[in-house]
C-alpha cells in the first residue's frame, strides 16, 4: 500500500518531459528546460520595423506543431519575438503584459519601445539564477517614430541595433543580414548603427529570402514564417509558407 503511494508520488513530482534528442550521458535526469527550436529575425528601418519568426515548434527530432506563433504584441508599437523554450517564453510574455498594464494604470499611456526594452532586460535578469530559456528580439518604433530592434541573451544583456536574429537558424541568417545590411566597415563615418537604408517592402523580401534559406539547412526552422510590420499606420501581418521537411 505504502509503496504504491510512493510510486504515485514520484510520478507526480518527477514528470517526464518530452524526450530530448538522444544523448549518451549516463545518469541523465530530468531537466526543467526543453528547446522548442525556431528562429526569429527583426530589421529596423527609418520609419518601420519588421519582425519575423518561423511557425514550427519542435522537441528533439520531432515536430510538435507547424503553426505556432512566436510573436507577441506587447504594446501598440512594440512586438516581441522569442525562440527557445516556449513555456518560458509564454510565461515571460504574460509577465510583461501584466507589468505593462500596471504601467498604463500609473502613467495613463502605453510604454515606449525603449522603455519596454529596459523592462524586458530587467525581467530577464531578475531570474539570473534560474533563467527564462528565451532568446528574444524586440522590435518596434521608438519615441521619434524610427524603427528600433533590440536583441537579448537569456539573462537580459541587450543592445539596440539595426537588425538581429536569434534561435536555431541564427548562425545561418545573421551572416546574410550582415552582408546585406551592414555598412562597409565600422570605421566608416558617420556610423549607421540603428537603421538600414532598405525600404519596407525590400526588408520584407529580404526576410522571406533569409527564412527560405535557413529552412533548407536548419532542421528546426520551417513550415511557415510569420512576418509583422510596424509603421506609423499601425501593425500589419503577413505569412509565407516554408518547406515542411
Amino acid at each position: 500500500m505504502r509503496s504504491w503511494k510512493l510510486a504515485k508520488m514520484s510520478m507526480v513530482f518527477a514528470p517526464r518531459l518530452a524526450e530530448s534528442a538522444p544523448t549518451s550521458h549516463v545518469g541523465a535526469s530530468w531537466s526543467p528546460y526543453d528547446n522548442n527550436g525556431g528562429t526569429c529575425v527583426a530589421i529596423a528601418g527609418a520609419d518601420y520595423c519588421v519582425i519575423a519568426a518561423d511557425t514550427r515548434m519542435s522537441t528533439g527530432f520531432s515536430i510538435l506543431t507547424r503553426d505556432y506563433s512566436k510573436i507577441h504584441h506587447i504594446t501598440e508599437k512594440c512586438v516581441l519575438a522569442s525562440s527557445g523554450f516556449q513555456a518560458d517564453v509564454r510565461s515571460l510574455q504574460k509577465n510583461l503584459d501584466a507589468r505593462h498594464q500596471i504601467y498604463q494604470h500609473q502613467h495613463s499611456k502605453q510604454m515606449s519601445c525603449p522603455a519596454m526594452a529596459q523592462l524586458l532586460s530587467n525581467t530577464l535578469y531578475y531570474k539570473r539564477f534560474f533563467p527564462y530559456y528565451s532568446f528574444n528580439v524586440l522590435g518596434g518604433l521608438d519615441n521619434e517614430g524610427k524603427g528600433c530592434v533590440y536583441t537579448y541573451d537569456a539573462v537580459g544583456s541587450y543592445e539596440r541595433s539595426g537588425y538581429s536574429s536569434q534561435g536555431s537558424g541564427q548562425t545561418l541568417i545573421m551572416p546574410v543580414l550582415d552582408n546585406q545590411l551592414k555598412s562597409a566597415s565600422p570605421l566608416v563615418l558617420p556610423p549607421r548603427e540603428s537603421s538600414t537604408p532598405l525600404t519596407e517592402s525590400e526588408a520584407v523580401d529580404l526576410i522571406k529570402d533569409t527564412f527560405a534559406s535557413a529552412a533548407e539547412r536548419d532542421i528546426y526552422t520551417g513550415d511557415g514564417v510569420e512576418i509583422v510590420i510596424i509603421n506609423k499606420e499601425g501593425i500589419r501581418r503577413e505569412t509565407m509558407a516554408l518547406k515542411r521537411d
Partner: protein
Amino acid sequence: MFRNQYDTDVTTWSPAGRLHQVEYAMEAVKQGSAAIGLRSKTHVVLAAVNKASSELSSHQKKLFKIDNHIGIAMAGLTADGRVLSRYMRSECINHKFVYESPLPVGRLVVQVADKAQVCTQRSWKRPYGVGLLVAGLDETGPHLYQNCPSGNYFEFHAFAIGSRSQAAKTYLERKFESFMDCSKEELVRHALHAVKESLQEEELSSANCGVAIVGVGEPFVILDSKTLQAYIESLEGAKDDQATKIEVEEERNPAVIERQDVSGGGGVGVGAEGEGPSDMET
C-alpha cells in the same frame, strides 16, 4: 443618546446593536460629491460630479479604470478610494495572469467587500471612508454594484451616492424601467440628467462632471471633455427626442485611460500628485 459613549472604537457595539464608527464612515460617503451609475442590457454608465475646492485647483479624480471591463466611480475620501482601486487593479491583473480571462465583476466586488469588512472588526484599523459604484461587464452581461464602508455590497439597475444624491435617485427611480432597452447615447443622457438633478442650481458642463462607459464589445473608457460637451449640448436639443443619435468621436483607445481637465499632469494611482491638498472628501 448613548451614541457618544459607544462610538470611539469600531470594535465596540452600542446597546442598540450598532457599530457607530461604521455608520460614521458611511456618513463620510454621503458628504462626498455625487456619483451615479445606471445600466442597460448592453452598457453601464458612470457619472460623477467633479467638485474643485477652489478655482485654482484641479478637481479630484472620481472615475477610475480598473481593467478593460471594469471601472469605478467613488464618493467620499478619495484617498481611500485610490488605495482600493490599486487593490482592485492588482486583483484583476493577477486573475488575468493565472486564468487568462477577465475577473468577473461580482467576484471582485465581493473581494473588496471582504476587505472592507476586515476594517470593521480590528481595533487598530478604521473603516474605509469611500463608497464605490463598480461598473463592469462579464460573461453574464453588464453589472452595476455598490460597495459600502460597512463591507456590504449590492447590485443595482441604477443608483446614486454622495451629497444631493437623493435628487438623482428620484430621477432614476422614475426612469429606471426604461433603461434596459436604452441605447448607449440615451443611457448617457439619462446619466447626465441625473447629474443635473444633483447639481441643482449649477450649469452642467464638461468642467464639473465626468462620464465613463463600459459595454458589450466596448472597453471601459472615461469620456474626454470634447465628447462629453457634445453629449451635454445634445441634452438641450433633444430633451424628449429619443431618436436623436449623436455623432461623436470618442477616442477608442482601450489600453489608455482618458483624463479630462487634469492640470499638472498627475498620474493615476501610486504617487498621484497634482491634486490640491485641500478637502479629503469630494
